[in-house]
């Protein structure tokens, strides 16, 4: 048997999943492939001053400048594969070498994610006593992170660089767990300048670092000791964030292009929901609105002609208004999001519970923003799933919430791969990940992890999956109601995601209650 601290299984897991990723090189890829090819072309062929103005393609640069610099670096390597992909006018250019380069770049940048996963596994609390490798929390976490279904299909089939970004996030979390707060702050600042969607979790960082790093002592009851404020630490944090942002945005501020860059980063013209509704609170709101409208028409309380033409189908983003319930504006979503994360932030201010409390708060910020945000994409659920994996291997309650959120969240990603050739891959991979997560967590926590109601819900998810993927395409309704599977998936998954959100909050508040009683 291997020695207790031998980590030889980690490279095997990492290598195995990397080789699997290479098998998907010729699989379907979405328009995101062209998006990134276009950005390679823009950053390589045009001067910096044109990067955020270039719009000959519909896929304009809408990530922060550090990501643009990353694309420039990738473009340097790309010219050895096929220099034609770097020409801005070559829209939708997909040669075999372009495909190979782009796919391999995602596999390569995932190395950061692999390193971050390893750091996280190092921070996991291992129970005492000799244990077989397969039942160690660090091993289970490694599999849950490295072989995560959502990340595999979004990054390596649909095509994105989420693994690279999550690498920064997980590494930052790992640094906080190791009490290296400045490094964690640096990594997060870099991440913010790579993809601004992580602003969702910035409040958690802000409150935690202020409370636990800038104030060095607590009173005996756990409340903050105002006298222990260290202005130097705040200055250090501030300068780290400022310098990273300066490095990233500096050239554009110097050229007076900041408003243009910001308008690209925050395009609020898009609708409340994506064409396929992410399984959040607004999906339930939409369905409620539609049902009330239909009911109103049936009961003759509303005129059908008065209702706005709401379109639920369509491939590109659409605006639509609600018929019965009040319409939702971006500011409403912002208020709702802030209200949903405020209790979590207040909780870690009043009673910081170390880095794990911070992680829980980060999770709630991510999930709160997913639930109430404007124009949320279903891929954003990964922002909650990956950090929750860490908590799941340490606590039975979190493991239960993890199973519900992950299975639902992963299933909600199914519509991303709608081609028939990819159907077996998504089904087999999903089954693999689901079977592993259920059995490994059950073994880890020595007993059943799910409540009966939760098990019933997840079985129902299987029924919905069969209905949408197998039964519906063969049924007579597929022409009359083509959006029905998407609607069903979205609504059913919303229930699961909302439930997970509420349970996570309940566990946070319950921990606070327990603390108060001590």
């Amino acid at each position, binding site marked *: 048997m291997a020695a207790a601290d031998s980590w030889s299984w980690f490279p095997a897991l990492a290598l195995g999943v990397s080789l699997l990723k290479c098998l998907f090189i*010729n699989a379907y890829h979405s328009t995101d492939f062209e998006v990134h090819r276009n950005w390679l072309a823009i950053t390589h062929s045009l001067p910096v001053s044109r990067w955020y103005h270039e719009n000959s393609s519909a896929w304009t640069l809408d990530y922060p400048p550090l990501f643009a610099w990353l694309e420039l670096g990738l473009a340097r390597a790309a010219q050895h594969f096929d220099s034609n992909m770097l020409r801005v006018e070559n829209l939708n250019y997909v040669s075999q070498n372009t495909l190979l380069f782009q796919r391999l770049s995602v596999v390569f940048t995932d190395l950061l994610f692999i390193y971050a996963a390893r750091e996280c596994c190092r921070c996991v609390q291992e129970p005492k006593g000799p244990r077989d490798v397969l039942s160690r929390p660090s091993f289970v976490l490694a599999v849950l992170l490295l072989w995560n279904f959502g990340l595999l299909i979004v990054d390596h089939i649909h095509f994105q660089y989420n693994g690279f970004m999550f690498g920064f996030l997980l590494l930052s979390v790992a640094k906080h767990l190791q009490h290296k707060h400045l490094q964690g702050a640096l990594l997060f600042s870099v991440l913010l300048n790579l993809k601004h969607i992580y602003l969702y979790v910035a409040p958690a960082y802000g409150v935690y670092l202020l409370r636990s790093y800038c104030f060095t002592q607590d009173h005996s009851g756990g409340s903050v000791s105002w006298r222990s404020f260290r202005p130097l630490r705040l200055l250090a944090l501030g300068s780290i964030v400022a310098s990273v942002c300066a490095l990233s945005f500096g050239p554009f501020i110097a050229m007076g292009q900041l408003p243009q860059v910001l308008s690209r980063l925050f395009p609020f013209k898009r609708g409340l929901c994506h064409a396929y509704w992410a399984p959040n609170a607004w999906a339930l709101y939409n369905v409620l609105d539609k049902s009330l409208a239909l009911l109103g028409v049936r009961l003759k309380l509303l005129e059908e002609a008065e209702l706005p033409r709401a379109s639920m189908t369509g491939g590109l983003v659409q605006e639509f208004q609600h018929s019965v319930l009040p319409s939702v504006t971006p500011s409403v979503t912002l208020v709702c999001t802030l209200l949903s994360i405020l209790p979590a932030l207040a909780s870690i201010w009043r009673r910081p519970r170390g880095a794990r409390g911070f992680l829980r708060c980060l999770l709630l910020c991510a999930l709160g923003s997913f639930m109430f945000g404007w124009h949320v994409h279903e891929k954003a659920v990964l922002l909650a799933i990956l950090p929750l994996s860490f908590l799941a291997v340490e606590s039975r309650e979190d493991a239960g919430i993890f199973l519900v959120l992950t299975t639902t969240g992963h299933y909600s990603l199914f519509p991303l791969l709608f081609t028939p050739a990819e159907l077996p891959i998504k089904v087999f991979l999903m089954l*693999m990940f689901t079977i592993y997560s259920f059995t490994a967590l059950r073994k880890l926590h020595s007993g059943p992890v799910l409540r009966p109601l939760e098990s019933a819900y997840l079985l129902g998810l299987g029924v919905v999956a069969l209905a949408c993927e197998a039964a519906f395409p063969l049924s007579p309704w597929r022409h009359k109601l083509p959006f029905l599977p998407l609607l069903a998936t979205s609504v059913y998954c919303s229930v699961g995601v909302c439930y997970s959100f509420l349970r996570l909050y309940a566990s946070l508040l319950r921990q606070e209650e327990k603390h108060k009683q001590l």
Partner: protein
Amino acid sequence: MHTCSLVSICVLLGLVVRWGVSLNSYSGAGKPPMFGDYEAQRHWQEVTYNLPPQEWYFNTTENDLNYWGLDYPPLTAYHSLICAYVANSINPEWVELHKSRGYESPMHKLFMRATVLVADLMIFIPAVVLYCLYLTDGSSKKKVSTLFCFLLYPGLILIDYGHFQYNGVSLGFTLWGVLALGLGWDALGSVAFCLALNYKQMELYHALPFFCYLLGKSVKLGLMGLFLLMRIASTVLVTFALCWLPFLSGSGYAMQVVRRIFPVARGLFEVQCLTSSLSFLWCA
């Protein structure tokens, strides 16, 4: 972790890897006029669907043996026939006599790849799982590791899911034969191996061990062994007879099939024969 879940995970990983390889190109893709093994299999579906069994192995106006003529034993032909029925129900153009030559399309590729996967799922993979669980020694962890390696063997995956062949079927049947013999079910084992032999004549490479084992076992048992031998002989004869039934009606049919599956007239080193047997050796 439960052996059951570990086995499921291994099987699912094996299936993902197989399908991942399927996404790539197949033998002879986009290379008229002859294309490759993929077109050969499609052509056999065309021939078996549209023509009566007595004409499958003969050179007629409807069946040009120079264009991928059937040169595997009858069970391959029956398998092609079943696939052809499914193909015809999805899109008749795939198996239209003469007109479907060189037919290539993404949906057709999906269908053909799916037939390989289904055949594997029904025959090869269950045999491998049962073999690793019941006929290998060691702890359950060792058995699962064996299963893992077995299912991820690249040679078979690349040839069946890349190049395009159905070696999983014949190897699967052979493995069922080994499994049955290992569990002491000699007659069933013989049936399974006969099916393998009637699927691909290259299983003859494995025939001697089966023959010697069964003969040796029979000799050792004395009088009971004689009964065993007779039982095995009769099951072999019945299996062969059932497989060759359509070809036993008239004169010369069976001989023609034998001539097609053992093309000594073509010379021992004809390229296709060589590559097929090499690939088979690799998998065996």
